[in-house]
């Protein structure tokens, strides 16, 4: 009798255990399957539903992997208001925007290198599939007229970042499982409630409700309160007695800049000689220059810029554009929501300028460009900003 009861109990537990484990396995597979199907970060395929562009560091790699484009617009928050539609209209390109908030040289050029590399890979795969057998990349490019291959890159080149250590990056926890080709670590993407809820489920609802996908124009774009007070919010009161040139560019600083450029930028530039790199130095506001003034770093900054430009203007496939000398913009603090972030109108103007070939810095004029800034900011009376600076 007791044995029967025990056997009965065991059988109930058996059922419960098996049901629970099997149900959990089925649910896990369902979640994985749904995430693969919708693939909200485009890790495996092109979008199959309407989609939301968000979570830059998760989604950008997928955009670079699976979207069709010939131009990459890549930068930090200073690039978030750029409109791909405007650039495409002015230049006849098909561009994608890859914004990385807070990114420096290391992160941006790594992401760029991956993106361009993937396109080369795409070419390789296509050529291997062709009936003529394996063809090299150059043959394919000439035959297809470079279709779907990166031709242009517009990349943010914030001089402040160029002056930093080559490995400088703001965060420590990047979703590298999305950046590599390792299938096993994709479990972090496929069994992820944020991916499921904010990506997959959101995309399904967006499609069902007939909402449009996020455009690249809107992707990560922002509107913030601008004005002199906002632009000067993080600046200390300007002391007219400050020595604005306290810090000089040392040999160590020069080495740091050289190493940063040659470790992060040059390998990508040299490996892609058929790609035109447009390096864009964004217009920092007067408030930012006041910050350099307060730190006594005006000379250091300008010398660093000059040295960086001397290297970057060496490459045939690189064009540098600088906007720091457009004082009508940089002095108009109504266009800035902090010391460096300009509004969408300025973004639009920048694209007009580079599309028209203006503001180009080359081997012949880079010293003049820096000297112009030096002349202006070494003599500028920054105390005029004090009325906007709170103690």
């Amino acid at each position, binding site marked *: 009798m007791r044995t029967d009861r025990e056997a009965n109990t065991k059988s109930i537990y058996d059922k*419960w255990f098996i049901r*629970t*484990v099997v149900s959990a396995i089925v649910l896990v597979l369902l979640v994985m399957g749904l995430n693969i199907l919708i693939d909200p970060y485009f890790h495996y395929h092109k979008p199959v539903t309407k989609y939301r562009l968000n*979570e830059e560091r998760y989604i950008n790699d997928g955009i670079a992997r699976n979207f069709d484009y010939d131009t990459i617009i890549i930068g930090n928050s200073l690039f978030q208001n750029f409109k791909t539609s405007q650039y495409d209209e002015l230049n006849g390109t098909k561009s994608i925007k890859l914004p990385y*908030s*807070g990114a420096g040289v290391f992160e941006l050029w790594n992401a760029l290198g991956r993106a361009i590399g993937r396109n080369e890979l795409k070419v390789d795969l296509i050529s291997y599939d062709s009936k003529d057998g394996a063809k090299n990349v150059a043959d394919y490019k000439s035959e297809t007229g470079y279709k779907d291959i990166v031709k242009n890159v517009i990349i943010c080149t914030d001089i402040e970042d160029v002056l930093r250590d080559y490995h400088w990056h703001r965060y420590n926890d990047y979703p590298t499982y999305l950046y590599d080709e390792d299938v096993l670590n994709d479990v972090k993407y496929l069994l992820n409630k944020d991916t499921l*809820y904010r990506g997959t489920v959101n995309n399904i609802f967006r499609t069902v409700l007939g909402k449009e996908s996020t455009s690249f124009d809107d992707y990560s774009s922002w509107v913030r309160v601008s004005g002199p007070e906002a632009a000067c919010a993080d600046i200390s009161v300007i002391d007219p007695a400050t020595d604005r040139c306290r810090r000089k560019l040392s040999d160590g600083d020069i080495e740091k800049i050289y190493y940063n450029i040659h470790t992060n930028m040059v390998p990508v530039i040299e490996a892609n000689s058929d790609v035109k790199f447009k390096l864009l130095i964004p217009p920092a506001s007067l408030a930012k220059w006041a910050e350099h003034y307060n730190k006594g770093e005006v000379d250091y900054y300008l010398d660093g810029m000059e040295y960086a430009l001397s290297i970057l203007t060496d490459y045939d496939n690189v064009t540098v554009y600088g906007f720091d000398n457009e004082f009508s913009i940089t002095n108009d603090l109504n266009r800035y929501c902090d010391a460096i972030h300009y509004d969408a109108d300025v973004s639009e103007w920048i694209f007009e300028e580079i599309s028209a070939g203006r503001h180009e810095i080359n081997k012949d004029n880079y010293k003049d460009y820096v000297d112009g800034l030096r002349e202006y900011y070494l003599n500028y009376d920054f105390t005029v900003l004090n009325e906007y600076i709170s103690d």
Partner: protein
Amino acid sequence: MVFNSYVFIFLMLPISVAGYYLINRISNMGGKWFLLACSLFFVGYVNVMYLAILMPSILINYLFGFLINGVFKDNNIRRKGVTVLGVVLNLVTLGVFKYSDFFIANVNQILKKDFTLCRLILPLGISFYTFQQISFLVDYYRDNTLSCTLLEYCLYISFYPQFVQGPIVLQSEFIPQLREEIRRHWDSRYASKGLYRFTLGLAKKVLIADTIAKAVDGGYDRLSEVTALGAVALILGYTLQIYFDFSAYSDMAIGLGYLFHIDLPENFNSPYKARTIDEFWDRWHITLTRFFTRYLYFPLGGSRKGRVRTYINILIVFILSGLWHGAEWSFVLWGAMHGVAMLISRLIRDISGSGKNSDDDSIKNRIAFVSIIQPCITFIFVNVAWVFFRADNTSQAIDVISKVFKGGWNGMTEYIHELFGKVVEIAWLLRLDVLNLNDKVPGIILIFVLIALMFICMLTHNSKELTDRWADRINMMTDTNEVGGRSLTLLVSSATMAVLLTWSIVSLGGVTSYIYWNF
């Protein structure tokens, strides 16, 4: 390796459980060796150096045990000498790896010197296995009939469910179970209880503790911005986080033990239900309290050597307990605070216990105090003490507490509630906020969640009770003839746990928000 990881749940757990029982069918010895191999893999997965430190330690302690109850079995003086030597060796090992830099830093500060820090790796689980090995040696000394094989001892120390964070198991609890024939075979009753308990633990860890941690860590990272309400949230939040985190680990450990047909001792018993600080320590990290009581408090004389000596013994135990938790003065201070609270509690008890002239009113007043005020004081004290445990240093702890009084009651710290609001489940909750309360008082959702969790801790059943009640219901079904109702209950129960398990698994990862505050 940690329990709340994909590699553990999808590979380590199923392979080790299935492999153990399959090999046990062929050879019990093989099963034990396999379990040992799994445990060592678990330990060495992150850093193989952990094994290089663990294995010699195990072998040396086993040798000491062999000397105590083997070679010197009939020579009590030598047995005692070897035991003392063994205990000292274990403490020195722990001291070298865990406290050498703490010691050097203090010497540097006091003597104004600049001795280089050792920066040794802290071996995984060393605090726990050191105590377990000490308990082994002392128990061997106290009972000369104890014995075990090297394989049994290796398993006792390295058994992976309890290796990293306990419970601190006694040999008398573990080794006899390894020898029971019945425990070598798969038993779905045990396994189901194990799965149930493990799932509850995993959910507590990843759904509750990690969610609160986002707000708490965010607050501590930007303490200068914390308001009074934010400080309250930080303090209460950490009190809940550490409970849900640590007790979750114990739940998972005990659940995994069940999956191997091994009973591990309970480590938590709803500690925030405690009415006094004594009771708190009877309910919090029970196996640690037991260790300190048996192997330190009693040998110091316990309460047998007079009132003053008892108080001193209590203080010693708690200060060392604080130091055991971490090589920082803030941990020592945390331990000392609990020690002093225990003293005050004892003093009140001693004084009130000696009063002979209590009338009815005073008894009533005392009952009111005991039943209402005392638990509140205990809970508030525990909260405050946890601040010292969590803070990077004493001044930061004081800063957090002072913010409750000086932080300004102008709503929740924006950074904290933004971080908290990004958690998927909290986003769902916010969708239910039809009255827009969270907009009217930003961050109030966090306070609601914390209060709800506090009441869950104080008023509802804990994981052990939930598991036992569930098992009781299943057991009772055996006697029920109503097949339909039984099937439905089983179905609902297994579906609930499957959903909870899946939900927890998909919560292991997440999307990190890269909040660059300028942009």
